[in-house]
């Protein structure tokens, strides 16, 4: 015991120095936005690199599955091309969405980190600010919605997955266009709840649920899933609808990040209106 005490006593000057330096660094990173961003960026960079290596190994063993998925996707893209008559431009393709007249750009990316069985799930993508990705962009999987980008570094980005109770998607019933909010409640990764559909709406099992274009994140009309069953919520008189999700998170690793070219204009207009309203 005495030896340990002596050991520290001998190095007291050095320990004081380390303590003061650590405190100074803490102040530096806590107060300074620039330094904080560097710390955050580098930690995301390291985590991203580890995920990338892991996924590269995993990729090799799932090549067959990927090929099938790509073929499927190619088919659906070709279908889309016939309608829009748009020549292919890679890697970013501007599409005038032919059915609903919205303008979106799709940036292809790969999932290099994916959690499925947590209470809050996140994805990590291999594209970042250098590829034009920004926070609050939507992420599409080949067969549905993946989530929303929450933070971005130069080469990587983190997505709050649809399988995260904080993710709320504007969704509607395709048959009668009534809209509500699609939320995942943390149990089964194949089932989510569609809430806020009023009780006078007629619902059938198997009704198709798709995205509603009211938020600027996703294009409208993307297939989300089918109504599995429903019940009336006695508290607020709205339906609680269980939706069987089309997105298969366990089997996908290619995604498209959606950039809404008109988002800024739309938000500016909203801001301007709110400002005018608040003025006397």
């Amino acid at each position, binding site marked *: 015991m005495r030896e340990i005490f002596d050991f520290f006593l001998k190095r007291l*000057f050095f320990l*004081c*120095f380390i303590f*003061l*330096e650590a*405190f*100074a*660094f*803490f*102040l*530096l*990173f*806590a*107060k*300074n936005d*620039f*330094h904080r961003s*560097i710390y955050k960026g580098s930690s995301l960079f390291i985590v991203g690199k580890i995920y990338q290596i892991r996924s590269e190994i995993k990729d090799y063993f799932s090549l067959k599955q990927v090929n099938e998925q790509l073929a499927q996707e190619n088919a659906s893209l070709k279908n889309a091309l016939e309608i829009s008559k748009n020549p292919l431009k890679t890697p970013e393709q501007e599409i005038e969405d032919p059915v609903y007249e919205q303008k979106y750009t799709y940036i292809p990316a790969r999932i290099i980190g994916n959690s499925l069985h947590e209470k809050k799930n996140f994805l990590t993508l291999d594209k970042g600010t250098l590829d034009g990705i920004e926070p609050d962009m939507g992420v599409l999987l080949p067969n549905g919605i993946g989530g929303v980008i929450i933070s971005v570094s130069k080469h990587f980005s983190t997505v709050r997955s649809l399988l995260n109770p904080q993710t709320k998607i504007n969704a509607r019933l395709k048959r009668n266009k009534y809209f509500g909010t699609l939320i995942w409640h943390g149990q089964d990764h194949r089932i989510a709840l569609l809430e806020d559909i009023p009780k006078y709406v007629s619902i059938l099992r198997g009704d198709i649920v798709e995205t509603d274009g009211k938020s600027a994140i996703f294009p409208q009309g993307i297939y989300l899933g089918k109504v599995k069953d429903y019940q009336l919520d006695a508290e607020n008189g709205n339906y609680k609808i269980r939706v069987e999700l089309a997105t298969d998170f366990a089997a996908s690793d290619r995604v498209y990040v959606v950039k809404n070219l008109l988002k800024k204009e739309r938000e500016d207009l909203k801001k301007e209106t709110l400002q005018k309203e608040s003025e006397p």
Partner: protein
Amino acid sequence: MRSFLSDLSFLALLCLLQVSLFNHIDFLGYINPYIYILFVLVYLPQGNKFHLLFLAFLLGWSIDHFMNTGGLHASSLTFVAYFRLNILRFIAGKNILNERDFSIYELSFAKRFSFVFFMVLLHTHILFSLEFMEISNLKKAFPNVLFNALFTGFLCLVYLSITKKPYKG
């Protein structure tokens, strides 16, 4: 106790001068000398090293407060305060610290010159490395570091030649 109080008043004076005067020099547009390093330079080598370490941190921190730089100056000044004796021994010889009443005023000009510039260069280098963080930015900042250190070192040498009486730490 008395020497501690005089240390504190010297510290306050340096902090005041740095913040009110030397931060606004803008020599050649961007060079501001960091003369507060004088506190570490003239502190008596026989003085209490713990005092010096804490006071250096305090001085750096106060300047950080005024300049809103978090812990930038605190970190760099504490660093040079810690390595001060090692550098002094390296430049002036191992036995120099055993002499009573030794202070850097008694060094020959060449040794004093190298000690001051070594310390100032180290301090400025750490300061700018922390400020710019990334290597690519640091390359751009290199002339800045050099000119800043030269200017600061020059002012420190002027101070040392004007004040003949050793500062009692």
